[in-house]
């Protein structure tokens, strides 16, 4: 963009943009602020902007079974994301670098699975999980989250592989490297940053997922299910809820900020760079 003389109109637009941005962020800021209030301050009228901050709620988080839900969340997120990447890299390879016949149909099959409501499959998933004694385990969540994130990861990784210059593959051909070596030693290092943002995005989706978690697990479950239990306490724990919510959102928000550059690509299945 060319530098133009800053007019009043520009200043006005900038002010409007900042107002819009702050409106978007206010609920989050309010949540963080509330988490440092005492419960009395949190429900005071009118709402207090200035107060003596307390760390009590953060200290109290670990008093109940938060730790076990947090552990399950971390395990489910990390393991499912790792499996997704391990399965998606070869799949993307077979759809890009050495494309199989009908690779276009396969790609659109993957994206179409994301358009089908998971609610339509929940009854059989529940019954099969029950038959294999997998209800209320981390394993069942790892399985469903892996399949939930695979299509997205394949599309996203593929979009990174497409960008590798043709010469690299010609060089590999001359070199006579095998498929496996080509993939592991040449392609993966080239798309490492892309793989990292793919993993971050899949991790965000797994971390935040609620529908499958609440239907397939109860006590051995992830943090959204833990949070849901606060619902029955009503207003008693507004500040405590804010503290828990703030704490468990830190990892995803940081992941989101880190992945910002490739985020658009991932969220649009590689359609928008």
């Amino acid at each position, binding site marked *: 963009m060319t530098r133009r003389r800053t007019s009043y109109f520009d200043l006005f637009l900038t002010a409007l*943009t900042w107002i819009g941005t702050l409106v978007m962020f206010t*609920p989050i800021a309010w949540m963080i602020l509330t988490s440092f209030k005492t419960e009395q301050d949190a429900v005071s009228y009118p709402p207090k902007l200035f107060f003596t901050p307390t760390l009590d709620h953060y200290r109290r988080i670990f008093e109940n079974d938060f730790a076990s839900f947090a552990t399950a969340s971390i395990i489910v997120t990390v393991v499912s994301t790792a499996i997704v990447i391990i399965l998606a890299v070869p799949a993307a390879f077979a759809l890009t670098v050495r494309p199989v016949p009908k690779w276009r149909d396969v790609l659109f099959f993957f994206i179409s699975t994301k358009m089908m409501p998971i*609610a339509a499959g929940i009854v059989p998933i529940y019954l099969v999980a029950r038959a294999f004694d997998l209800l209320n385990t981390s394993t069942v969540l790892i399985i469903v989250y892996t399949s939930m994130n*695979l299509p997205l990861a394949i599309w996203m990784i593929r979009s990174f592989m497409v960008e590798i210059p043709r010469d690299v593959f010609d060089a590999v051909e001359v070199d006579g490297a095998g498929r496996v070596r080509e993939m592991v030693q040449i392609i993966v290092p080239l798309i490492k940053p892309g793989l990292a943002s793919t993993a971050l995005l899949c991790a965000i989706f797994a971390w935040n997922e609620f529908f499958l978690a609440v239907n397939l697990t109860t006590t051995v479950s992830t943090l*959204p299910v833990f949070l849901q239990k606060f619902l029955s306490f009503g207003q008693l724990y507004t500040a405590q809820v804010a503290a828990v919510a703030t704490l468990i959102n830190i990892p995803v928000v940081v992941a989101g900020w880190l992945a910002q550059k490739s985020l658009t690509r991932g969220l649009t299945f590689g359609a928008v760079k």
Partner: protein
Amino acid sequence: MSSILLSSNARTARARRSFATGWWNRLPLLPALIFVILVTQLPFVITLYYSLQRWNLVSTTAPRFVWFRNFFNAVSDAVFLKAIFNTAVMTSSIVIASVVVGGLLATGLNREFRGRTIARTLAITPFFIMPVAAALFWKTGIYDPTFGILGWITDEIGIGRINWISQYPRLTIIILTTWQWSAFALLILLAGMQSFPPEVAEAAEVDGASRLYVFRRLMLPHLRPFIELTGLLVAMYVLENFAAIAILTNGGPAYSTTNLSYYVYLEAFSSFDLGRASAFGMISLWLAMALTIPMLRVVSGIFKEGGRA
């Protein structure tokens, strides 16, 4: 003679080899493909089978094949029709509102000013917030008539304390979900605006075109595929909106905020009527496909471009 025999032998050997290479090429794809089919597609087939049964986990009678009775019941079930209506209303308002809010923010952020990166980062943050956490805090800290910040604001500006969730349940869900998805729309539309060639805008400016003209006549047509893509993706995710409904309203009052996903959940895990739940699930699957597949066709151009397909 012998040479002919030799060449035909060589041909079959080559054919066999190419068959083997074909599968060797497909091999890396298979684990992911099989995994996705088993976990996401097979359940739909089983659901279709269940949907033809009368099967209630609470009743003692064994499941029994009833053909399409669950589907006929669904069509005459007022709550089910209401759920379809709610899904349509909530999804379309969230999609439109998200595109509008995200588009306005993107227009503002697609300009040079100090602190632009920070503003952009703050504005996209709502999208990352865990939906359950967002819904829970909005319910206690924002929508609550006595203690929420929104109740205080409406009181200050003189329209009294509004009990948002019980008076306008559907609106509270639309606002909360729009808040999260407009951040997503912002991300895509901003990327779209940044892919607009600056030379074009400059050339138009040299020609004396006003900024409004550049925006309406050049930027908007350029953005069209991005807007369609945003609409498709938001619709795809919001059709299954669950966390906001489960936390804010539980689908009530009187099913006024129950969408299809939530109704399937209620039938399956509160009424334990697996046959009916499966039929509802099948219908919502067809509706989702009828809605998203034509849209996918519309935006497949942009996918092809991006994926060089």
